[in-house]
């Protein structure tokens, strides 16, 4: 059951060979046993999950089950879920019980999926290792001395360790793809605007995008079918016709032109990752694809640009946390300004404060043009690189992360080293393109390697097809961490 696909789980649920309550209880038992070691979940609420499972069983009994009805899904703790504590990995929201549902949560609720719990994450999604969480670091199920990646590290670890059937994540600079790569699972960041941001706690609004994390491309397609869709409550939600993201899964890849950006295979890529990605590309050639050498000349600028734009947007978004209406308030203060300053100083962790300060600085008088405006201009150059590249190829591939999972604490004191680990993912967010990561074998120390697949705008169905065909021909995606009891 733990290795079943979502489609298989849906079938056995609808055939009443197992109930949603049984399935949910099975996962809750696993979480009770294994979460102390992995720290993948911040909050579980067995009563609420089982109540949803009972409702799902009632729907299934009437023969009205849909694709995900009764299936337990872990939700990143960035999504507000009514009645659930929603912390965003921060002390600031340690006592915040959401009074409403995020769009993503209501989409899952409406289809009868079960909310299995809220997964750990870097504080306010700011981090690449999950070590900035106020609730402690998540451990990588493949080697618990290593990081799971971030910021959606709890979701990635939970999927890899079979502590849920599938999970959700969010990706501002690589926060779905990098942890998916480091934990050996599949993850998809859709085109900006495809999934509503309503009720998803904001980090950098022009970059934030939610997406699914699962064990296969086929599972991702089913999840995206539920998550995507126009929502008038998000002003950047795109009004597109609903589509079936699984429609192209079975198409052959004959004639597919894969662009390999030279910059993604240059200095900085560790040799074990390069080798695994090269082997995956060779497999694609066997499947009928051809390879094109392309260039994304401005991609090296994506990190500096990102570390101006994302903190700028974050400093604005996080100004709402003032200790007045919800969240943490300092126990002692002298006046209103002191209350703000102390509540924020005590409620936010070090990385969040760093980014708020960067953002405040680059937006302050006298520096706006040199930093913020310059970064927005280079953002356009980076996006244009992709437009040019897609004239020569159908899809872009490369590594997701320059290395496999690093050790916990390894990059602790040096934010710049941590930032550089997102070198291959950030440009995709800046351009607003869809990107995904799928398992492509193992590197040094037997740690998973992720293959990144980047499509043009709204190419999710094509990317899922490209990923699915690889997963039919290989079995990397079905490997499970040996040290996790199945």
């Amino acid at each position, binding site marked *: 059951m733990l290795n079943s696909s979502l489609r298989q789980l849906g079938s056995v649920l609808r055939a009443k060979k197992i109930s949603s309550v049984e399935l949910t209880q099975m996962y809750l038992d696993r979480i009770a046993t294994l979460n102390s070691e992995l720290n993948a979940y911040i909050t579980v609420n067995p009563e609420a999950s089982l109540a949803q499972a009972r409702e799902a069983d009632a729907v299934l009994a009437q023969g009205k089950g849909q694709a995900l009805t009764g299936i337990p899904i872990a939700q990143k703790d960035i999504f507000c879920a009514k009645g659930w504590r929603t912390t965003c990995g921060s002390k600031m929201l340690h006592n915040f019980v959401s*009074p409403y549902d995020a769009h993503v949560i209501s989409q899952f609720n409406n289809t009868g999926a079960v909310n299995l719990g809220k997964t750990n994450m870097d504080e306010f999604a700011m981090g690449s290792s999950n070590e900035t969480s106020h609730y402690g670091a998540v451990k990588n199920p493949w080697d618990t001395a290593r990081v799971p990646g971030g910021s959606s590290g709890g979701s990635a670890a939970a999927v890899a360790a079979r502590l849920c059937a599938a999970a959700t994540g969010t990706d501002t600079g690589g926060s779905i793809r990098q942890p998916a790569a480091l934990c050996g699972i599949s993850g998809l960041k859709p085109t900006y605007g495809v999934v509503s941001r309503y009720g998803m706690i904001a980090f950098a609004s022009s970059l934030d995008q939610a997406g699914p994390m699962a064990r296969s491309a086929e599972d991702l397609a089913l999840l995206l079918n539920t998550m995507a869709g126009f929502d008038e409550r998000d002003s950047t939600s795109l009004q597109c016709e609903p589509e079936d993201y699984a429609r192209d899964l079975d198409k052959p890849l004959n004639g597919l032109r894969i662009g390999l950006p030279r910059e993604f295979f240059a200095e900085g890529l560790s040799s074990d990752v390069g080798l695994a990605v090269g082997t995956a590309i060779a497999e694609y050639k066997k499947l009928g694809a051809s390879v094109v050498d392309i260039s994304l000349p401005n991609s090296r*600028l994506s990190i500096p*640009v990102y570390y101006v734009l994302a903190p700028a947007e974050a400093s604005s978004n996080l100004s709402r946390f003032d200790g007045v209406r919800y969240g943490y308030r300092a126990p002692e203060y002298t006046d209103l300004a002191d209350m703000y300053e*102390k509540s*924020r100083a005590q409620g936010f962790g070090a990385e969040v404060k760093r980014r708020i300060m960067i*953002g405040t600085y680059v937006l302050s008088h006298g520096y706006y043009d040199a930093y913020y405006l310059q970064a927005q*201009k280079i953002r356009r150059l980076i*996006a244009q690189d992709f437009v040019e590249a897609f004239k020569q190829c159908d899809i872009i591939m490369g590594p997701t992360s320059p290395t496999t999972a690093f050790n916990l604490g390894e990059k602790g004191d040096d934010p710049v080293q941590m930032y550089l680990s997102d070198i291959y993912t950030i440009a995709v967010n800046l351009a607003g393109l869809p990107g995904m990561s799928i398992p492509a074998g193992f590197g040094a120390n037997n740690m998973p390697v992720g293959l990144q697949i980047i499509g043009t705008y709204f190419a999710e169905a094509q990317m899922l097809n490209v990923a699915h065909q690889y997963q039919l021909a290989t079995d990397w995606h079905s490997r499970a961490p040996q040290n996790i009891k199945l």
Partner: protein
Amino acid sequence: MSLTINDVKKVARLARLAATEQEAQIAHAQLSGIFGLIAEMQAVDTTGIEPMSHAQDVTQRLREDKVTEGDQRELFQSIAPQVEAGLYLVPQVIE
């Protein structure tokens, strides 16, 4: 442009983040490293490039001017740090 310790203190104040002298020192060292990384941007010629503020080139949607949210004061205030008689309590602002 190098960042001074006074810049850091000013930014912390603007961002409403209390910082001790020691915290400001640490932040100064780390932010200087980050701005070193960001400095790479300055050498790029962006003459005539339109700034890109958003991933999609779309205009803001308009909606009908009608009430969409009902009154949920009690629900929202149930999670507030301090309320009284339906009001959020903060330290006295006006003497």
